[in-house]
């Protein structure tokens, strides 16, 4: 049960477009209520997106509650509150999410047809505006 439960934040992160998700720790919760230990926090979830996120939860809710051991309470934190109150966690979680795929290694066949060829560019010389390249780093193959 525990390992199933611990795997859910990552699964929900994918369902929620990469937003950080975690089980709420008791130190982050105020008050006592039934299901306190089954509280999920979703970050960077602004009001305009929350209804959509709730809809995405529906198909997995039964499995989620089975893993959690009962009904789950979901708390959405807006982007502003996520940054104000949970900045360290959010930054860390986003970094992990964003860089998750950078470590994937694969063999590249020799016959891959290129999209373009790269070109050498010059970056701006210090603060001297107008000294950097103004072209894309690729040209048609």
């Amino acid at each position: 049960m525990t390992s199933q439960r611990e795997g859910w934040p990552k699964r929900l992160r994918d369902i929620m477009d990469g937003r950080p998700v975690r089980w709420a720790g008791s130190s982050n919760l105020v008050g006592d209520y039934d299901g306190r230990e089954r509280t999920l926090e979703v970050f960077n979830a602004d009001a305009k997106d929350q209804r959509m996120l709730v809809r995405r939860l529906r198909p997995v809710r039964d499995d989620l509650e089975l893993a959690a051991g009962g009904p789950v309470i979901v708390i959405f934190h807006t982007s502003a509150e996520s940054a104000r109150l949970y900045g360290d966690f959010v930054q860390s979680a986003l970094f992990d999410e964003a860089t998750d795929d950078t470590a994937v290694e694969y063999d590249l066949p020799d016959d891959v047809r290129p999209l373009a060829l790269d070109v050498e560019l010059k970056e701006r010389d210090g603060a001297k505006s107008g000294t950097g390249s103004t072209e894309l780093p690729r040209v048609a193959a």
Partner: protein
Amino acid sequence: MLLTAQRVVSPRSHARGVNVYRYVHGPYTWERVPNDFLPQGNPGELIAQWIQLSPGGNRVVSFLDVVAPDEIESVELQQRLASLKHRLQPSDGPTTAYWDPLWVCFGCAALPVPWATELGALAGHIVLRLSGARQQFVRSTP
């Protein structure tokens, strides 16, 4: 600003790398990226580049262009980069999309890796470079 990451392969040594570039446009804000700031017409001025494989004739096998206001909050940019692979849908040719103040374009050759994984990898390389962190581990494809 324009953030670009592109995976390149040397035609001679077959060495590979992901090069990342950062351009600026100036202190403009917008709800939708103006056509004047789309990269084909005006990528901006290059202010930083992180080079894994020296450019000049390498084959580009995937690229990700992201246009955003220069002053965008870093946490918002990071959230959107983390979300890209969940939001963009594959299409024929490069996939382009407007997303609030962002415009993105992802192109990918026929690679032996899922489309979303390559998109996530390029977005992740941008995050890595902007944060100053180094890649620290390697994971093989399943």
